[in-house]
């Protein structure tokens, strides 16, 4: 972790010796028998430092560090809220892996991710490049593009649910009628349900990506375009050989971020379809939710955490990759 070592710069002008502390236990005085050291520790600012750290330590210990450890433990236990938990080894994992719905959920999630990649990934890049070339009204366009992001996601989904009305007088079907396309079932058929979810998700998220790409486009050195022109490059050449290669760092980062986000998609399938029709939109997260909170037999917390842990391992690898990339990006 280069980040943590970087800040180990010499403690500035503070000759008061501070006692060393064990890992994770920032309360050294208990291990120091001599009260003189305690006094110098307090006078050197050790106590006030702890006071400043206290909110973070309490909140992270209770709501972050310990739940992370617990989730690993719970995935190996049979837990309900009444009896004491019992160890069951890898039973939860075996159960989850044998659930016939798991394969469906994984395929659905991959399908969602793939569609989001096809629709949702290129669109903001194209819009951002076009916006950066239009000279007037840039602020107005940025605001327009960002508006959908400001709409609360729950409102957006509920509103689009009205748009997706499958009757011939539904909003989208009316528009399709203008160009002579027959009414579509949208959310009510297993073939069109998932693309409909992706369409809404793309609309809701594109604005954020556009703003990020716009910022990245500003950082492309103009000299590169000048040089390309000297070599007789056309506009298309410049986009292909200068702009996109210059953006490849941020493009890759956004790609990973999108994969991480789509792997955890929950809101859209939960509110639009509840996983239907015929389980066509059951995603991994929806399955976790069902195990834990929608179980007629009471929460199956063990299976839910087992599946979360498996998903988390995959996602943690991706996040690690993302972190390595952003670190290189921001230091270069």
């Amino acid at each position, binding site marked *: 972790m280069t980040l943590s070592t970087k800040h180990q710069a010499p403690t500035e002008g503070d000759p008061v010796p501070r006692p060393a502390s064990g890992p994770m236990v920032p309360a050294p005085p208990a291990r120091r028998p001599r009260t003189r050291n305690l006094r110098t520790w307090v006078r050197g600012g050790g106590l006030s430092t702890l006071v400043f*750290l206290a909110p973070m330590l309490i909140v992270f210990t209770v*709501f*972050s560090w310990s739940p992370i450890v617990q989730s690993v433990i719970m995935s190996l236990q049979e837990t309900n*809220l009444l009896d004491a938990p019992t160890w069951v080894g890898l039973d939860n994992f075996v159960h989850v892996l044998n659930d016939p719905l798991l394969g469906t959920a994984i395929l659905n999630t991959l399908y969602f991710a793939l569609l989001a990649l096809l629709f949702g990934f290129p669109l903001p890049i194209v819009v951002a490049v076009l916006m950066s070339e239009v000279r007037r009204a840039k602020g107005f366009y940025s605001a327009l593009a960002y*508006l959908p992001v400001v709409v609360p*996601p*729950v409102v957006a989904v509920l509103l689009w649910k*009205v748009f997706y009305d499958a009757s011939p007088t539904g909003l989208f079907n009316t528009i399709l009628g203008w160009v002579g396309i027959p009414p579509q079932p949208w959310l009510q058929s297993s073939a069109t349900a998932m693309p409909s979810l992706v369409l809404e998700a793309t609309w809701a998220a594109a604005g954020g990506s556009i*703003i990020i790409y716009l910022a990245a486009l500003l950082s492309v050195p103009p000299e590169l375009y000048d040089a390309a022109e000297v070599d007789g490059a056309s506009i298309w050449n410049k986009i292909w050989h200068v702009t996109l290669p210059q953006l490849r760092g941020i493009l890759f980062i956004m790609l990973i971020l999108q994969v991480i986000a789509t792997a955890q998609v929950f809101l859209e399938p*939960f509110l639009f379809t509840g996983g239907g029709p015929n389980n066509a939109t059951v995603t991994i997260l929806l399955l976790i939710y069902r195990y834990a909170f929608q179980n007629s037999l009471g929460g199956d917390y063990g299976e839910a955490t087992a599946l979360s842990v498996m998903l988390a391992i995959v996602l943690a690898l991706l996040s690690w990759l993302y972190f390595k990339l952003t670190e290189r990006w921001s230091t270069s």
Partner: protein
Amino acid sequence: MTTTQPPVFEGVDAPHAASGLRGVIGRRRAARRPDETGDRGIVSDHDRKNRGVKVGMGGVHFVLFVGLVIAGLGPLLWLAKSAVTPTQDTLRQPLALWPNGIDWANLPQAWNDVHIDQFFWNTIVIAAGSWFFQLLVATTAGYALSVLRPRYAPILNGAILATLFIPAVVLLVPLYLTIVNPPLLGDVSLLNNYLAVWLPAAANAFNILLVKRFFDALPREVFEAAKTDGAGPFRLFWSIVLPMSKPILGVVSVFAIIAAWKDFLWPMLVLPDPAVQPLSVRLPAVQQSIELDVFLAALAISTLIPVVLFLVFQGVFLRSAGLGGAVKG
């Protein structure tokens, strides 16, 4: 293009050279003004004189304008219209520009009968509390780790950073059980208590990282001077570091409030009592029991505040969005 060769100032004394240089830079900026930001883009001024390119750019401009208005503004305008349109009109002719009748009563009905007012207030309380606790934790921790720097700081940095790699989903069940049965509090459950939303939101490693990096870049001389003048760590924090950090506090505030306003799954789990639920949780629940026009009015009211906030504080929002990609975070 102006020459890239640096201007030579022979036999000119320093102040003049400086002003001369400034003059050149100023002129160069002015010459580039048409390119808006001062930097050129993909299409050069020379390209823009070409007729085909001119027509093409005009087309691009038109498509961009129409597309962005339809996609960005369209759904909101439709929602605004439908909020005051009778249900039958919305169902039969969703795209009619002028409905047969205007039903202003939808709005007060949604506000009073559906109790949007109550849920609105709950949302504001949730957002305000999350904002407070996130700022409290991020600034105090950032200050301790960046300015006070105890010996064990690297360990804490690592432990905080590590949580960034753990996706939120893995915490869902254990965190829920922590809320149902919090440690050290005996039989008290935090269900239906706003602390159950506020405190987990405060355990946000990204905030601490942002604030800490900002504090790292503050000039240490100022801190030393304050210390020499007798300022203790608390005084230094409150009177020196915080006032110098308004930009990053603004960014963290925007993140915190937006996230709280958007959150759905977590408040739904830990606030099962409808009386304390925020809009995001209540709206899907009331959908079945009320008429479509009143429901759309409720949606419109829930959208209004974030949209107005965005239009007023556009700059902060868009800057934070650029940062949200964690490009520099």
